[in-house]
């Protein structure tokens, strides 16, 4: 085993550092408290959504409804949570619970998660459109304050990233239950043999995904001040890319919360970087894909070298 294969966090860190250095080179003014906050502001909800996706990928499933779900959470936040906080909170709680139920159903009926979540994405999208037929709503004042807070030394986005990474690292990598959850992805049969109820564990993983999805929607409204039923549709693919970019694997329960947060930040930065390069917006999505392919290729090469050694 090589050093890189053993410490899978290194490649995401290096990717982010290289991209950051290139951005600062192109646009030195970004190297400031204000500049960093502008660069990474919108990365916070994406990081939360990536963590949510990671919970699902951790148990060997994939969630294609996450973008629609985050949009729905955003719509609820901008309407109910603002107008009637108690009712809004209850709705958000119900959303988290419904995710847990979804996980249990997927496991109990042995349904492919990719199909179920694809179907659910239309359900979430429909409800969101029902709540907020046209863009609008308003962010609750406290949420707005929270997302625009100016902590000393480092901008909000960076502080939030550190907090998200630390909390999820403790939860998934260090705690006992997190270890068992990762075990479900690694070898569900042996976890079941040890006397655990896999259906409850899956419900827990999905419930956590629902929780972080809701948090992502709230964070997004706090930044954007209003919501729209389609506000976060691209989060589905961004979150999957973020997990993989951060050193996670599609199967086998190999995930890294810190890596996922870094992956989300890398993706956000890649978009800004391309703007600084004065690339026409028509090409940006393609170029973003190219960056993704580049990083994944690098990882594959390092892995192959590692297995040869």
């Amino acid at each position, binding site marked *: 085993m090589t050093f890189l294969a053993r410490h899978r966090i290194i490649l995401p860190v290096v990717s982010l550092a290289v991209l950051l250095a290139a951005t600062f080179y192109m646009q030195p003014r970004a190297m400031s408290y204000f500049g960093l906050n502008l660069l990474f502001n919108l990365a916070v909800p994406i990081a939360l959504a990536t963590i949510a996706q990671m919970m699902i990928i951790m148990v060997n499933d994939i969630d294609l409804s996450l973008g629609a779900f985050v949009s729905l959470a955003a719509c609820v936040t901008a309407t109910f949570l603002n107008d009637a906080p108690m009712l809004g909170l209850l709705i958000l709680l119900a959303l988290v619970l419904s995710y847990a139920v979804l996980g249990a159903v997927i496991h109990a009926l042995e349904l492919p998660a990719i199909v179920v979540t694809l179907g659910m994405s239309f359900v979430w999208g429909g409800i969101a459109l029902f709540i907020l037929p046209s863009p609008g709503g308003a962010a609750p004042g406290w949420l707005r304050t929270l997302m625009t807070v100016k902590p000393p030394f480092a901008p909000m986005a960076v502080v939030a990233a550190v907090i998200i990474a630390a909390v999820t690292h403790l939860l998934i990598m260090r705690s*006992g239950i997190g*270890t068992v959850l*990762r*075990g479900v992805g*690694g*070898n569900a*049969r*042996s976890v079941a043999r040890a006397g655990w109820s896999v259906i409850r564990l899956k419900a827990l993983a999905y419930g956590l995904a629902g929780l972080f999805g809701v948090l992502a929607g709230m964070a997004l409204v706090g930044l954007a001040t209003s919501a729209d039923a389609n506000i976060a549709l691209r989060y589905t693919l961004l979150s999957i890319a973020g997990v993989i970019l951060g050193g996670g694997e599609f199967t*086998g*329960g190999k995930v890294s919360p810190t890596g996922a947060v870094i992956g989300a930040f890398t993706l956000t930065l890649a978009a800004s970087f391309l703007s600084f390069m004065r690339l026409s917006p028509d090409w940006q999505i393609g170029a973003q894909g190219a960056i993704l392919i580049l990083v994944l290729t690098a990882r594959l090469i390092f892995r192959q070298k590692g297995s040869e050694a």
Partner: protein
Amino acid sequence: MNDHERAPLVSLTDAARHFGPVRALDGVTLSVAPGDCVGLVGHNGAGKSTLVNLVNGGLAPSSGTVGFATGGSALEAGVRSVFQELSLCPNLTVAENLRISHSALKGPNWRRPAREEIGQSLDTIFPGHGIDPNAEVDTLSIAERQMVEIAIGFAPRGSEARLVILDEPTSSLDAGIADQLLAHVKRFCASGGAVIFISHMMGEVFQVATRIVVLKDGKVVAERPTEDFTRQGLVDAMGHVTADTAETTGTARDFGKEVVRTDQGLTARKGEIVGLSGLAGHGQAAALARLYLSRSSAWRAGKAPEVVFVAGDRQRDGVLPLWSILRNISVSILPQGARRGLVDREGEARVAQDWKTRIGIRTDDVANPILSLSGGNQQKVLFARALASSAPVVIMDDPMRGVDVGTKQDVYAMIRAEAARGRTFLWYSTETEEVCQCDRVFVFRNHEISAELTGAEITEEKILEASFEMQEAS
């Protein structure tokens, strides 16, 4: 020891387990008390794994009872099992794998006690193991993983291991480490623990077991203290009592030139039926798959394939479940009948109709969906698919799984007829009766050929002898 301590940890009374019409375990009475080391032996499908799953609580008996000392579950009674196929989570570290089966590890700093516990267990069983409790399991070698799994089985895990089931624990360990394990098993039993030891290495069984239980066809056929068994007696007990040599068709036919030869030493001549035997999972299927892949191209299907494959796992790599019987048969011969890339519908129907009558597929219309057939008839379709092609070599990976006796006889006859016409068959089977149909048999053990038997040598006894390691575990 007083009476209470000698009370059995687990006792099975007339326990049976059926899977549909298959009687995997057919009324077994067995009890294991502290200090016992039970050697469990038997051939493929004798019911060993079903018995293990009843004892560890993985399965409930269809009839009869399974009782534990504490009256509670297998887990509470301290029954642990170490399985042959590795059941660790490869993405977790050694210590984290202990946490999976040790829910008493709690608190913010559970890692330190976990590391200590697994380290201690490894040190006791395998002194000088050199395994880091912080290493991720997928960075360990197969042998190291097996050692970790055994160590987790014997680790206290909050209570105490009282009965440990070891299913082929030494299959991937080298001799020195295996000896450490055997020594530990003896120590463990001497201090009041119990072990059920399953192994194909006769030497090991004789070395550790205090009592040997022989299973055959889901029944206990012999249960005696180890001293009362001889090696030969044990093999005889495992085999069929009725020495049926009714149909070995000793007519030594003349075979053509050699058409198959692999690095492993597997050979076959034109017109020959070659059997692959030995205990399940000892490399037979892998050998056949390698042979097939080396003779066929992944890129283009030729007009005249060299080899065809009959899959044993119908659901996984056999039937195309959405297609009709006709399509399922003709898929192997489409390139031959095709004209300018278009399927010759009439030819296709002719071939399907032809094989329906020749092989006796029980359906009124070959356009019916394949899933309307019973398992045995689905398998016949797969045979038809293979035999309809012009390939001179047919590879069969345990094709008779779940096929009824009548169908089996039909297929045997079919295979003999095709072999007489110059086709070569390579046939892996877990059932000795089928292997006895072959002209020549290779017995596999530990992914190597351990014996080659021909003609009158092909008897169940000889095959058993070659499948089990007879030498002393040195």
